[in-house]
């Protein structure tokens, strides 16, 4: 990031985030999808008659809710704005590409956290004890950044057709859910499953949520946090570098 005038660029990133929220997030269908999808997923789980403890299910649900909502809209913003030519407007303004990427991330973080409070409230309403609230809050924030950065990174392929990007990102997002210890506890995964699970940032987040509610965890909590932070950093830097390279293509 261009460090000269960084605070000013940060303020402008916030302006971009507000614009994103207003235009892309505060829309009826997006909100309904964001709130109801986790709820329905949960019901599907819960009523599916699986013999898994409630705390396990709710941790998985929280993980999925944050993951899906943080990556739901962010991959489509660059293609949308490229198509609508508003990206050209932003490119002519005194904002760096890094600030645009950061703005898209911030909007996605806020949306993800906002929607994820729903399953968390469900968990508390169902009487689950919250053992490590501070750790959970920190992990939600960190993971929201991590997943949002992944969402913006998924927008890198140079196409201005949002549905192409959405298809591509679904291809990547759904498999991740299956290797992240949501449906099957990590300790029950076969070796090859574990080998895949360590490459999913969602694994570490779900592990922390589980720890927050039950006190049990697979990886050390600091390792979970470290891994999430590392993924967040790599995704953010990659998104900024690759968008800087590809943005002229969208004009």
């Amino acid at each position, binding site marked *: 990031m*261009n460090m*000269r*005038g960084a605070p*000013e660029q940060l*303020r*402008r990133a*916030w*302006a*971009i985030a*507000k*614009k994103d929220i*207003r*235009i892309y997030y505060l829309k009826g269908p997006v909100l309904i999808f964001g709130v109801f999808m986790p709820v329905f997923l949960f019901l599907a789980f819960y009523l599916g008659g699986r013999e898994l403890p409630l705390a396990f299910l709710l941790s998985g649900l929280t993980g999925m809710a944050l993951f899906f909502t943080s990556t739901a809209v962010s991959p489509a913003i660059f293609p949308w704005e490229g198509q*609508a*030519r*508003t990206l*050209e*407007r*932003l*490119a*002519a*303004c*005194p*904002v*760096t590409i890094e600030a645009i990427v950061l703005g898209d991330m911030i909007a996605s973080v806020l949306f993800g956290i906002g929607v994820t409070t729903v399953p968390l409230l469900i968990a508390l309403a169902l009487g689950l004890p919250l053992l490590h609230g501070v750790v959970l809050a920190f992990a939600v924030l960190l993971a929201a950044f991590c997943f949002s950065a992944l969402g913006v990174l998924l927008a890198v392929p140079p196409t201005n057709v949002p549905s192409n990007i959405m298809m591509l990102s679904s291809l990547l997002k759904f498999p991740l859910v299956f290797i992240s210890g949501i449906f099957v506890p990590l300790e029950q995964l076969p070796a090859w499953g574990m080998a895949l699970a360590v490459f999913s940032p969602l694994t570490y987040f779900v592990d922390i949520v589980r720890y927050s509610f039950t006190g049990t965890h697979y990886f050390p909590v600091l390792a979970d946090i470290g891994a999430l932070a590392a993924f967040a950093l790599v995704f953010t830097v990659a998104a900024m570098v690759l968008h800087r390279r590809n943005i*002229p293509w969208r*004009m």
Partner: protein
Amino acid sequence: MSDVIEVRGLTKVFGTITAVDHISFDVREGEIFGFLGPNGAGKTTTTRMLTGVIPMDSGSVRVLGHDVRTDPVPAKQRFGVVPETSNAYVDLTAWQNLMLMGELYGVDRARTERRSHDLLETLGLAGRSDQKVREYSKGMKQRLILAMALLHEPELLFLDEPTSGLDVQSTRMILSMLRALNMDRTTIFLTTHNMAEANRLCDRVGIIRGGRIVAIDAPEKLKSATDRLHRIEVSFDGEIPAGDLASLDGIAGAERTGDKWQITADNPDQAIRSLVGFSGRHGAAILTLQTLAPSLDDVFLKLTREKGP
């Protein structure tokens, strides 16, 4: 006067097409510079490189003293852009679009609101500011985009065909705004197809064809350079001897058509002086006198049709 835009060897290649081919020119502080050329000549590509929207392949551009390639943000902070295709956020209202511009340019809220009020008023959008831009007509969108480009009071304004497809009213409103801005010392870089507009508005024009600049000068100078022989149409209130007219200084030939004389002049200034003297000597008052200089259209067609620049 210093140069606000300095372009040297600017080049852009798209695949096999060299859209902009080693062009160099300067735009001076306080002038209105018209950038003319036929469709596909490279006007938009040039404008987008000057404004840092697309990268250049080679060459250099300095805008307001900043290298656009290495240091674009401070330059962008000081200029405004009205691009070729309308690009306000259609899901936001006009007012919200202007507030967003204020934030993106780091203008404080009070000043943003004050400027927005004034600009919407001047551009005739005051009553419609809380309407989503999606519901705007083309002319309204274009006026809003001009307002968005002007919000931060830029010293330099780029406009890519700002009046194309607009009705007379919107066109007038935009052009008179540009003139007023220029009076306040805003430098203006304008691409257009409209020769009459360029002729009336621009201090200098550059003509681009096939990615190369074929001429740069003041419109009047371009016209006189294009056609050496000017035509003058004159009528007198009495009879005058034909032979005498043709032999006057600066006049190459004279021909009578109806109640007027068509004069071909190799030196229009000398010819007009001679005609005035002539009318005095013969006691025949001049009723009408028109110089029919080549129009910018003629210059444009000639320069953009010629083979090779």
